């Protein structure tokens, strides 16, 4: 039992960024725009945060450097999600294509920047990442819970949230009662970019000491899976993120459990993806996705 309790901090460390990203993805899809660029946006945020933290730390900024780096990561995520917003909302582009484009672009941009700034295919190591509190928990966990709570509150308790959900279910109906569909979708896409960037920063500042091309390693896609698996609801997405995060954490902590040590670590790596697939099949038939999800909105046409 105590061994399980000891796991909690490391599970939280791994779950938090996935959860933050997934909530962003959920908000985005609730408004009717699919964002498969989450993976790339996380990478961009992580690279920006790692580079910013390295420079600010070496200029002697202390603890505030970490939070400023997180903010910069989030800002970069937001900036690049603007591409997706323009493509999906203004130009009625295919959202899968533009998301794929951003993912490919992010692969290049992050390492390109590292090559220019540090003359290596990774950012230079920073001295000190985020520190845990007295319970051994990283602040990212609290950030994640604040994000979940805020998302739930805004989506389900404020008029704005109702408008946002309406845009994802039936944009024409929303438009007819005076809701600005484009504006709301813009806010949703940019929020998802901001949160993905923030989450990327969280990963790099808690789990490693530099950004490499392997830092994100599919976590953005796990977050995307968590959105579908959690049936587009904050509680469901949180549960899914925990399920997937715990499966990932097992790759690290399986060593503490003799019974699990016999299995290759890859088995735990596969779990989140396999569970999602099985869940999608098991829950098929009833469609939980926002009805207008992924469809461009043509004003006037019905």
């Amino acid at each position, binding site marked *: 039992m105590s061994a399980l309790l000891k796991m909690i901090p490391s599970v939280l460390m791994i779950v938090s960024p996935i959860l933050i990203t997934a909530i962003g993805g959920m908000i985005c899809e609730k408004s009717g725009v*699919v964002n*498969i660029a989450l993976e790339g946006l996380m990478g961009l945020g992580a690279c920006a945060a790692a580079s910013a933290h390295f420079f600010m730390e070496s200029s002697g900024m202390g603890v505030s450097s970490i939070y400023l780096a997180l903010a910069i990561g989030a800002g970069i995520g937001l900036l690049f999600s603007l*591409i997706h917003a*323009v*493509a999906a909302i203004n*130009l*009625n*582009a*295919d959202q*899968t*294509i*533009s998301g*794929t*484009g*951003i*993912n*490919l*672009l*992010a*692969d*290049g*941009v992050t*390492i*390109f920047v590292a*090559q*220019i700034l540090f003359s290596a295919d990774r950012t230079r190591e920073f001295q000190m990442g985020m520190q845990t509190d007295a319970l051994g928990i990283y602040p990212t966990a609290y950030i994640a819970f604040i994000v979940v709570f805020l998302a739930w509150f805004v989506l389900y308790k404020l008029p704005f949230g109702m408008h946002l959900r309406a845009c994802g279910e039936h944009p024409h109906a929303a438009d007819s009662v005076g809701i600005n569909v484009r504006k709301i979708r813009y806010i949703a896409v940019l929020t998802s970019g901001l949160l993905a960037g923030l989450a990327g920063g969280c990963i790099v500042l808690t789990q490693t000491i530099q950004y490499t*091309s*392997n830092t994100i*390693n*599919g976590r953005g*896609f796990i977050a*995307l*899976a968590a959105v*579908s698996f959690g049936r587009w609801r904050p509680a469901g997405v949180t549960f899914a993120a925990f399920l997937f995060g715990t499966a990932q954490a097992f790759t690290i902590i399986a060593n503490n459990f003799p019974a699990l040590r016999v299995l*290759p670590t*890859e*088995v735990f*790596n*596969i779990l989140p*993806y*396999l569970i*999602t*697939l099985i869940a*999608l*099949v098991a829950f*098929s*038939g009833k*469609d939980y996705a926002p009805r207008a999800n992924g469809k461009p909105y043509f004003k006037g046409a019905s």
Partner: protein
Amino acid sequence: MKKLEKKDSFASRLLGSDGAVSVLVVLLGFVVGTILVALVGRNPLNMYKAIFQSLTGYNIDNGKMNVRYIGETLNYTVPFVLCGLSMAFAARTGLFNIGGEGQYIVGLTVAQVIALLGPQVVGIHWVLAILGAILIGALWGGLVGLLKAKYEVSEVVSTIMLNYVALYLSRIICLQLPGATTYKTANYPTTALLNNALFQKLTNNSMLNNGFYLMFISIIVYWFIMEKTNLGFGLRATGFNKEAARCSGIPVVKSIAISMAIAGAFAGLAGGIVALGSFRYGRVLSGMDNYGFNGIAVALIGNNTALGNLLAGFLFGMLKNAQALMQSKQIPKEITFIIQGLIVVFIALRSAIAIYLDWLNKRQLQKEVISK
């Protein structure tokens, strides 16, 4: 009623042609990439020197010629073209196959397993390995099609999930192969290799291999199935309008499953060719090779046509081969990824052209109405 005379301007005719737009988009990607290189204080000319050398084998700086570079470029082209065909085949049926990477990985894995454990008979061994790769790719892709057709699981989500399942499954399997360390297995027996003595002689011992032939056969197969068979007609009809196809008696469910299976077969073949053609040993993958993902870009640039795929795949092969040359000329090789990413983003933004042409037509109509 008087027929409206349509006088298309040069711009609207240019923007109406898919091929011309693709060329434009690629050029735009290079322009932005060039500006980026200049902005960070490197000489863009070096980038083009590297690309020129990977294209022609001629080194502008010292005037030396080495045909080996041409061979390598062609060899890199093969998986790009095949993964592009995979994406394109599914796209013609209205499916978005992000799973090319996973299908590529399972193909690669099975080819490695057969190469190391299969019967070492000259002329049969490598054929078996390649067939195994095609078959497993088809199964892996067909599974997605089945889930989509039977349970309405979105192929975008399921293919992404299967990519990672494939990657880790491949690691589990390859770590059990003879002589496996953390990153490679024992060397293949020579009967499993795809190497081609003629190509090696012609291209100064490049890695170019029999996979090159297989690529051309695949392109012809793609073209033939799509354009010349009832099956292809049904698939295209399904892609244009699923409901209409269903009403005309085309088995839509079967079409989707078959289309994904054939798409998977192309990507699986790519995996098999890379495994046996470009390496002398099996690899324990630590990450994705990204041929599958770039295949998406290849198909988008090539407008899902056989010829377009060949040209776009060649462009990507050329860029990939130029990477090492760029790095030696102080140009970060990631600029090629940026250019590829930009191209895909610009293709997404291409929908702006439709909006622009629409606006142009409306304005012209307005003018004509007013002038009457």
